[in-house]
Structure formats: C-alpha cells, structure tokens
C-alpha cells in the first residue's frame, strides 16, 4: 500500500513544481509590461496625486514666521515677532528664484501677494538687532499692505507642508479663518459647474454616439464579409485623420456662411444662418464625429457574435418582428453598448482641443482649465488637483460600470 501512495505523492509534488515554474515564466514574460506600466503610468499618476496636496513653498522658506504665527488668533494683527521673523526669513532666501516661487504660491491665495513679497524681498531690510516693534514699523514703511491680515492669514494657512486647499478649491470649497470648510462665494465658484458641464457634454456625446452608431453597426453586421470590410474602412477612415484637421473641416462646414447653413437656407428650413459654431452644438457635433468609431467597433464585434436563430425562433413563435428585435436581439448586444459607451464617455471626459477651438467661453471642459493652470498660471498644484478630481470621478464611474456590467453578464 505504501509503495502505491509514495510515487503518486512525488508525482503530485513534481507536477506542482512544474506548474509553479510555468507560472514564474509567465510572470517573467509580463515583467517588461509591468515595468513599463509602472514607469509610464503609476509613477506619473502618483506624482500627480502628491503634487495635488504638496505645499512646500511657504513651509520651506518662512520657517520662523510660521512658528511666530502659530499662536496667533487669526483675527487681530499678528504679533510683532512675526514681522521680524518674516524679514529674517525673506533675507535668508538665497536666490530670487525661490522668492519668486514663494510669491507665486501666496499670490494664488491672495491677489497682490506677488508684488508684496517681491518688493519686500528686494528691499533687503536689516532688522537682526532691532526690537520686534521697530522691525514691524520698518516693514510697514516698505509696504503698508503688511498691516492687512489677509496676507498673514495666507502665510499662516500655508505653513504646513501638506494642504487640502488645492483639492478643496477644485470642488469650490475653502477653509475659512477658523479652519472649517465652507463653500466659496458665487464669483469664485467655477469648478463644480465646469465638472458638471464636462460630464453632461460627455453624456450627450455618448448618447448621440449610441443612437447613430447602433443602427450603423447593425447594418454592418448584416452585410457580406467583403462589403462589411469595405464599409468598415469608411468608418475607420476619419479615425486615421488628425483631430485638428477634422476640427478645421467642421469650422469650414459649420460657420455662418458655411455649407451647412447655406444648405439650410437654400432648402427653406431657416431664413437666417443658425449659429452652429462656438457653442455647445458645434462641440457636440465634432466630438460625436471623432468618437463614433469607438462606439461602432465594440458594437460590431458583439453583433457579429449574436446568432440570428433566436430572433427567428421568436418570430416563428408569433412575436412581431420589431418586438423580437427589441426583446431578443438588443439585450444580447448590451455588452457592446456598455463597452462602447464607456469607451466614448471616458475618452470625451478628457477632451480639450475640440471644445477649445469650437466652443464658447461657457463650453470649456475641465482639461481646458488643467492646461490653463499648467501653462499660463504655472500653478501646478491646482492643475494636479483638477486632474486628480477627474481621475477619481472617472475611476468611480468605472467601478459603477464593473458592477453594472457584471450584473448584465449574469443576466445573459
């Protein structure tokens, strides 16, 4: 009996070892991809998330000022020691460049802080041996604005190395004097509108893509192989053209005296040109055109795999053809609709060039402001915070899709 068990045990052990080696080899094969993903995807994303909360500018330079302000009640003028500490801290900054970075950071909190910091930095006051009260008087002589509390509040607020402020600002919230979180005023509240707008434009584009793409994909799936291939090339052709070229083409077509408007007036639909450009409509038209292939391809591949027998069976059992189509055929293509919809929706959320060139000031999507903060304001903390908001909401949507998608599969 023992002789019979032993070899089988060792056989199982051998098998397990071989299996493990196979798995390792498979892992090793995917290693380059994992490294590639880590370097090009995870590291930049991590850096983005860190930059969205990192706040080193004030904490690194105004060390003593931060300490002197720690006991301040945030209401009256700050203690005299803070004034002296500020001058000492500013003098300790070795390069103008660093002072400039500090000035930029504080200016994005309080308008005017840039010129205030730079003029004070350039004045190079010497207060080391003076009592704090005299140092304060000297500083106020350089710029009377140091008597106002908002600038001091900004310094006190940013004395810590990490800040939730960028993220709060990107959803129209802010910390007030006491540190409690409140909504910003109407004049400053921009980003929740912009985020909502980004999602609503993307949703409209996705729905229009489904409405146009579904019948087209269905028609393609009923054609013979040769004709379907030919038609598929026509679908893909715009896919291979540069986005900018397609946008320029839409400008030519949609402008006030463009082809579309001239046709509408010629055919008597309208008497005067319809505004089709530099508004929401123009943005949606161009985005649908650009994103349609992303909808058609997954739909087509799903429709190709749907067997025609079920619909035939339903009709032969007495169902009306239209009812059979909607009750038997369409549910079988849900995975295609879900995949195409998700692809189009997530791609549209990041759209930048199309709305920038075809939309008005009220049609810009979140990416436009990310670019604005990156390139124009050079406020990368804010740009990263907006990017993070976009990333998190997209991931949340994807999670919803996963749940929804699974339910769909189990139903099918």
């Amino acid at each position, binding site marked *: 009996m023992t002789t019979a068990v032993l070899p089988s045990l060792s056989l199982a052990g051998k098998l397990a070892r071989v299996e493990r080696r196979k798995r390792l080899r498979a892992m090793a094969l995917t290693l380059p991809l994992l490294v590639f993903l880590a370097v090009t995807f995870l590291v930049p994303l991590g850096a983005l998330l860190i930059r969205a909360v990192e706040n080193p500018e004030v904490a690194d330079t105004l060390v003593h000022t931060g300490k002197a302000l720690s006991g301040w009640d945030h209401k009256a003028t700050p203690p005299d020691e803070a004034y002296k500490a500020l001058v000492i801290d500013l003098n300790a900054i070795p390069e103008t460049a660093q002072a400039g970075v500090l000035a930029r950071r504080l200016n994005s909190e309080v*308008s005017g802080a840039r010129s205030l910091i730079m003029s004070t930095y350039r004045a190079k006051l010497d207060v080391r041996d003076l009592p704090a009260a005299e140092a304060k008087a000297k500083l106020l002589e350089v710029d009377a604005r140091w008597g106002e509390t908002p600038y001091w509040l900004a310094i006190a607020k940013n004395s810590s190395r990490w800040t939730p402020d960028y993220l709060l600002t990107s959803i129209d919230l802010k910390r007030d004097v006491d540190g409690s979180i409140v909504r910003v005023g109407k004049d400053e509240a921009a980003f929740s509108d912009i985020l909502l707008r980004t999602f609503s434009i993307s949703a409209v584009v996705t729905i229009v893509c489904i409405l146009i793409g579904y019948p087209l994909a269905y028609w393609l799936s009923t054609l013979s192989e040769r004709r379907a291939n030919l038609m598929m090339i026509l679908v893909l052709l715009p896919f291979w053209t540069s986005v900018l070229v397609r946008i320029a083409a839409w400008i030519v077509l949609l402008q006030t005296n463009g082809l579309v408007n001239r046709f509408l007036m010629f055919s008597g639909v309208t008497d005067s040109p319809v505004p089709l450009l530099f508004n929401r409509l123009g943005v949606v038209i161009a985005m649908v055109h650009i994103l349609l292939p992303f909808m058609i391809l997954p739909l087509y591949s799903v429709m190709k795999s749907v067997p025609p027998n079920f619909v035939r069976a339903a009709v032969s059992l007495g169902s009306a053809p239209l009812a059979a189509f909607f009750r038997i055929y369409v549910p079988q293509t849900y995975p295609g609709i879900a995949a195409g919809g998700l692809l189009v929706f997530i791609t549209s959320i990041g759209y930048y060039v199309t709305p920038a060139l075809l939309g*008005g*000031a009220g049609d810009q999507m979140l990416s436009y402001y990310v670019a604005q903060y990156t390139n124009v304001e050079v406020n990368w903390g804010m740009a990263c915070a907006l990017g993070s908001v976009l990333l998190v909401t997209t991931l949340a949507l994807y999670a919803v899709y996963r749940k929804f998608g699974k339910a769909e599969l189990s139903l099918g």
Partner: protein
Amino acid sequence: MKMKTLMIAVAAVMAIPAMAQSQITVVNFGGANGAAQKKAYFEPFEKTGTKVVQVEYNGEQAKIKAMVEAKKVTWDVVEVESPDINRGCDEGLFEKLDWSKLPPKSDFQPAAVHECGVGAFVWSTVMAYNADKLKTAPVTWADFWDVKKFPGKRGMRKGPRYNLEFALMADGVAPADVYKVLATKDGADRAFKKMTELKPNIQFWEAGAQPPQFLVAGDVAITTAYNGRIDAAQREGKNLGITWTGGIYDLDFWVMPKGTPNKAAAEKFIAMAASVEEQAEYTKHISYGPTNNKALAKIDPKILAMLPTSPANSKTALQFNISFWADQGEALEKRFAAWAAQ
C-alpha cells in the same frame, strides 16, 4: 604608440563640435510674425556665420520651467509675453541680460528695458471691423458695446485680459484710470457687469488668427484683435478697418532661458534684434512697432501710420499693466470662468 593614437582620436572627437557651424535655437510664436522675424533678424544673423533654428511655441512657460529645472536647456533665445518676463525673471528661469552689449538704454522705450531681456516689438489689442459691412466706423468702446447702433456679434478674446479694461472704458472710465478702478472690488464688479450686458452677443476667439477670419466670414460685426493680424489680412486685400481709440499696447521680449549653452551667440542675436536698422526693416514685414525709438525716424510715414507706436495711434492708448495682471490675473481668470458658466 597606442597611447598616442588614442589621444589623437580623442582630440579629433573633441574638435568636431568646434569645427561644426555654430547654431542657436530661437523660439517664437510663428505665423506672420515669425515670418517677419525670419526676414528681418534670422536671415541677416545667419550671414554672420551662426545658423538659426526657428522653433514655434504657444507661450507655454511650463516648457521653459521644465527645461531649466532639468538643466537640459535646448532653447537659446525665446520670445515671451510681458507678464511672463516678470514672472520668469522673478522665478529665475531667465539669464540676466548684459546691457553693455546692447545699444544704450536711453534709446529704448522705458517699458522695453528689463533686467532679464529687451523689448522685441510693440503690439496692440485694438477694435477691428469689416469696412465693407459697416456704414460708419465705430469710434469708441461704448460703440463696441452698442449693439443697436452696430448690430451683429462681437468677437472677444476668451479670457478676462483686455476685455475687462475695454469694458471699463466702455462704461466711461478714462484710459488713465482703468487699472486703478479695476484693482478695487467695486471696479472688478463693474467690469464684469458690463461684460454681462454684452454676453449674449459675444463670440469668443482663442487664437489670434480667428478675429480677421470672423470679420471676413461675417460672423461678427466688430471684434477685438491683435493689430498685426488685421494688418496681415489687409495686405491680402481684405477691407478691414482698425479703430485705435483705447487700444491696449504691450511688448513682447527676447529672453535667454537660464543655462543656455550658447549664451554668447544668443546675446549677439538679441543685440542685433534690438538695433535700429533691423527693427526698421522688421516693420516693413509686419505692423508691430519698434522698441528702439531711433528706428522710428527710419520708417516710411505710410508704414508708421499702421504702427501702434505712431504718435496718432498711441494718443489714447493704454499700456498693458503687467504688475496688475501678475497680482490679480489668477483670481480674475477664475472669476471669468465662473462668469462664463453663469
């Protein structure tokens, strides 16, 4: 023996860069202005033996910042807009300019003298219209806002810059007081309120090439525009007109990113682009004004009439206030985004 051949080889390798023709990379905004710079500055400079590689960018300071931070500077001379020279200079992105290598400071417009660079040219944001379509020309910014007298859409730059200044002038603020008023909370409110008045009739533009296109296509009746772009369209035979009243003029500057490997050649280029003959030549190709005042005397009166720096055109003009926008820009941009969403 072996050692000797090795040394010769090393010496030969090291000599290659020295033997190769020297070259500098000059970065500008391209377009008609890039072409004018090529004719007036790049081509004569290449005759001195240094090749000029022209690169276009869209004013992204992030690119310069990334280059300087990575200590891999591949741009030698860059044309930057006025807010960026102050900001970049404060943040140490640019080399300090050695003014002893340039014409004397007193020859230049006061605004063109900067520790990190020199003014390249003067341009202006003005009111422009299609003279074929409007019977009478608009004269003031109040006319720009008057959609009854001049029916049709208005083109404006997407963003608060210039627009808020124009709005205040339309509301009756004298050019000299515009920035004083705009700096107050009430003044900003007033400007945005005036913008709201015109909002249904505004068609925003993003790129400088768009306004003349809007005018020619008949999309807008009047628009704000960069004067050089309107001039370029006029040269193509389009009947566009400019109203210089209350225009906002501004300078672009030549700077050197910190750590440029070809600093000596870059300085030579900047000195040449700042001198009288070249600046006068430049105005023949595009109607942007010279920063070197001595060049004005060498310019044909016909061309002078089209420049923002001519006495007639600059009479009621307003200089773009760099320090105001450096301080208030970020907050006003954000408020503009909120305003656009309302």
